[in-house]
């Protein structure tokens, strides 16, 4: 048993959900108790999807446990097939169903559905979300992909992007354009946007682009072996990595290595004198292995930072991350306990953190600026605007994202210097990106005014003042203003609890 408040990764069936939701024409029947449907809202809220994830949960309850759960599963499978008419189904168990040993795969097989039904075996008590995604996509690929004739033109598959992936949507666009400049078109992008039918055509490509090793490596290795598809090892995040990626693709295919850098701005922005103060800034990196490894190179070679420490939460990437840390002369931190990460950050006291949503919060607490480079992320990191991490535009996005909290840092420094100016004061709110947020000056703290001093103003009675403090701080100012103007309108000189609520009712909409 291990006490945990925050987890970097969900259970493995959430990984399977990420694959199912990324695809079209695939349905997932998950043997799971009531309540596991919470995972739906990750997709409908955080990623803001406009449809329900293609999952049927069997929703067994305590009273079903002795007898009925197997039948429940079969009924759910049959109903899902009839309602959604998918091209293929995946079936599996969540952590609780794993304990009751109903064998969803075996049961689904006996039903004789006229579509491929792919059983998943995801060990919930040993592995996590990324493994679940990688394994699920591997099993689907293994079940559906077959050797076939190559396309006449050079084509490739994009492998690894999923639902709930950090910037996967825009990375696909960027890499598709970059490959198109090389004269290479995309055969299948999977799992994101692919149907099971599309997966049967994977073998027609000349090679695979492994975009995210965490979620696509097992499938790529299998395709290399069984379908004779080599795959790329460089993840094109950062200027150097993008150049290397183009060279790697050129070597694999024999095309001319061309990269259109007309819109690439990171190198000049980084070279410009304005960026001089970035030199040697100590940065700590944490996230999934792939994003940390690529970010380390950008930080040192393209931004001129000093990498003060790095690590990852996914054990699957521990080996390459340890090797990378040695190369940078720092100690790798491989952990999924955010308290360990917090402790390391406190010890190293970096000037910038590049991490996940959790590191953003740690940074807030410690007063250190932070930018997000990796999942898990929250809703604000599924932006409406185009913001890839990969390729040319990705480099531009990364420059802005990382420098932004530091520029804010400079602003705050100036603010601090001029704090005696009438416009500034010690309690001026901190920026939203780094540096310890101080509470806004409390409007309640101002000196009480009496009606005598300022004729025409209204006085708050003690009990009303106390009641007002129960109103959440972010609307308290509005409540105060509304109440005062209401009182003024009514010609009242004092505000009691009743006045407060009269005003509330008056302004209610």
């Amino acid at each position, binding site marked *: 048993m291990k006490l945990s408040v925050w987890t970097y990764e969900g259970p493995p069936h959430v990984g399977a959900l990420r694959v199912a939701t990324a695809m079209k024409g695939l349905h997932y029947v998950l043997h799971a108790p009531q309540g596991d449907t919470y995972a739906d809202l990750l997709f409908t809220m955080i990623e803001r999807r406009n449809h329900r994830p293609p999952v049927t949960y069997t929703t067994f309850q305590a009273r079903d446990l002795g007898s009925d759960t197997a039948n429940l599963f079969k009924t759910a499978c049959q109903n899902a097939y009839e309602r959604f008419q998918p091209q293929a189904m995946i079936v599996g168990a969540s952590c*609780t169903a794993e304990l009751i040993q109903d064998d969803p795969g075996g049961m689904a097989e006996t039903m004789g559905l006229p579509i491929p039904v792919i059983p998943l075996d995801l060990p919930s008590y040993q592995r996590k979300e990324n493994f679940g995604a990688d394994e699920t996509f591997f099993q689907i690929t293994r079940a559906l992909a077959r050797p076939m004739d190559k396309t006449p033109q050079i084509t490739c598959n994009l492998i690894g992007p999923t639902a709930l992936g950090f910037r996967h949507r825009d990375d696909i666009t960027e890499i598709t354009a970059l490959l198109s400049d090389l004269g290479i078109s995309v055969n299948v992008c999977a799992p994101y946007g692919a149907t099971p039918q599309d997966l049967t055509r994977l073998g027609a490509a000349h090679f695979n682009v492994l975009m995210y090793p965490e979620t696509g490596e097992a499938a790529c290795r299998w395709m290399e072996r069984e379908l004779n598809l080599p795959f790329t090892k460089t993840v094109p995040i950062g200027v150097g990595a993008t150049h290397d990626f183009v060279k790697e693709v050129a070597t694999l295919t024999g095309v001319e290595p061309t990269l259109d850098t007309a819109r690439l701005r990171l190198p000049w922005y980084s070279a410009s004198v304005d960026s001089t103060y970035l030199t040697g800034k100590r940065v700590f990196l944490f996230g999934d292995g792939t994003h940390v490894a690529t970010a380390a190179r950008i930080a040192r070679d393209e931004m001129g930072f000093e990498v003060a420490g790095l690590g990852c939460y996914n054990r699957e990437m521990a080996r390459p991350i340890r090797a990378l840390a040695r190369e940078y002369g720092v100690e790798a931190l491989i952990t999924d306990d955010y308290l360990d990460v917090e402790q390391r950050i406190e010890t190293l006291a970096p000037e910038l953190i590049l991490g996940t949503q959790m590191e953003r919060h740690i940074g807030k607490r410690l007063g250190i600026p932070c930018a997000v480079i990796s999942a898990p992320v929250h809703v604000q990191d599924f932006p409406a605007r185009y913001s890839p991490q990969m390729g040319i535009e990705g480099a531009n996005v990364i420059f802005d994202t990382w420098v932004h909290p530091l520029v804010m840092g400079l602003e705050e420094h100036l603010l601090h210097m001029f704090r005696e100016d009438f416009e500034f004061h010690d309690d001026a709110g901190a920026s939203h990106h780094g540096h310890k947020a101080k509470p806004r000056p409390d409007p309640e703290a101002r000196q009480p005014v009496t009606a005598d001093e300022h004729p025409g103003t209204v006085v708050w009675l003690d009990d009303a003042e106390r009641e007002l403090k129960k109103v959440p701080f972010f609307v308290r100012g509005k409540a105060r203003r509304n109440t005062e103007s209401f009182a003024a309108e009514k010609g009242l000189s004092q505000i009691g609890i009743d006045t407060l609520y009269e005003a509330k*009712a008056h302004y209610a909409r």
Partner: protein
Amino acid sequence: MTHHAPPPPATGCRETPVLKQRGQHEVFCGLTGIIWLHRKMQDAFFLVVGSRTCAHLLQSAAGVMIFAEPRFGTAILEETDLAGLADAQAELEREVDRLLARRTDIRQLFLVGSCPSEVIKLDLSRAAEKLTARHAPKVRVLNYSGSGIETTFTEGEDACLASMVPALPETDKRQLLLVGALPDVVEDQALDLLGKMGIDDISVLPARHADSGLAVGPNTVFALTQPFLGGTLAALERRGARHLPAPFPFGEEGTTAWLQAVAREFGVDEARFDAVTGAPRARARKAVAKAATTLSGKSVFFFPDSQLEIPLARFLTRECGMEAVEVGAPYIHKSVVGPDLDLLSQGPTIAEGQDVELQLDRCRTARPDLTVCGLGLANPLEAEGLATKWAIELVFTPVHFYEQAGDLAALFSRPLHRRNALKLEAA
């Protein structure tokens, strides 16, 4: 007293046949109750014994709150815990010792059962007993189940409160017990109103602190402030306390009826009742009337979520002029929501439990003006052109009693306002 609410219907919905279906339930499990309960009980810690899924659920539901040193966590079961059960007890004791050593401010510790811990039959009540003996008198350890196989969403609060009842000290005192976790501001308003009527001996379950002197006995009468407390009601009756059935205090009508039930029990005369409630009732009516202009004549469809659906449907139909198409609830305790069902005019389908696909079919056919549902359904239904109000907000936001009546109505009118305000057709 002037009556502004419409007269009660000749026949309410109490005897309406309930549509019961089973299939996929799109609901939270009882663990989610922890998220608001731990804010209310300021010296309690909630330790879930479960899997990574449970931890992930709490994290997803708690949103940003997870970083404010929350007083809840998950002891995640690992492979070795599943292999041998004796070991799991020792592991749990070790984790609890470590936790209590680190958090010396904790006075009550809840071991919260989950689906995995229930399925492997981990005996949390024995663990709680042993741990209580070990950490007495400073910390009391209780246990309840918030598992999805046994509890739906707000039932987690019910299970938690019910677990506290047997351990409460005995008293012969004539007292009123308010049952249900309310936001502090709402609780204070309720106590203030009752105090002005001359009812002084009032306790609240759950209390804000472990040492509040809460006790129960045969002279205790209790009123529920939340409709999902069927288990707690039964536990209190076993201790000899008596339940005051009443509609739930939503809106002006609901609050007045709720207060009246209490006032009648304590012999408050009508003049005094009117003197205390007159002004706030007028305010509530006025505030509700503004939202009602948007809501009046509109149809509403409730997916099951929190058991608040029936009282809210009563409020929306009677005070805001809406028309209910279907009122789905995860469970219907007639002894608890009966008074609300009496006030709800016949017409809507009353549904208990869920087969979400079939219910979605019914919703799409009805095309209601407003659909109250969970976050897993809200955006997909909006994309289909249906206006939605996500239900979870109703559990976190202060919505009970007079001063919140306008806010409550506004929660439902806002999505409709927004739909009118946005001109996205051209985009």
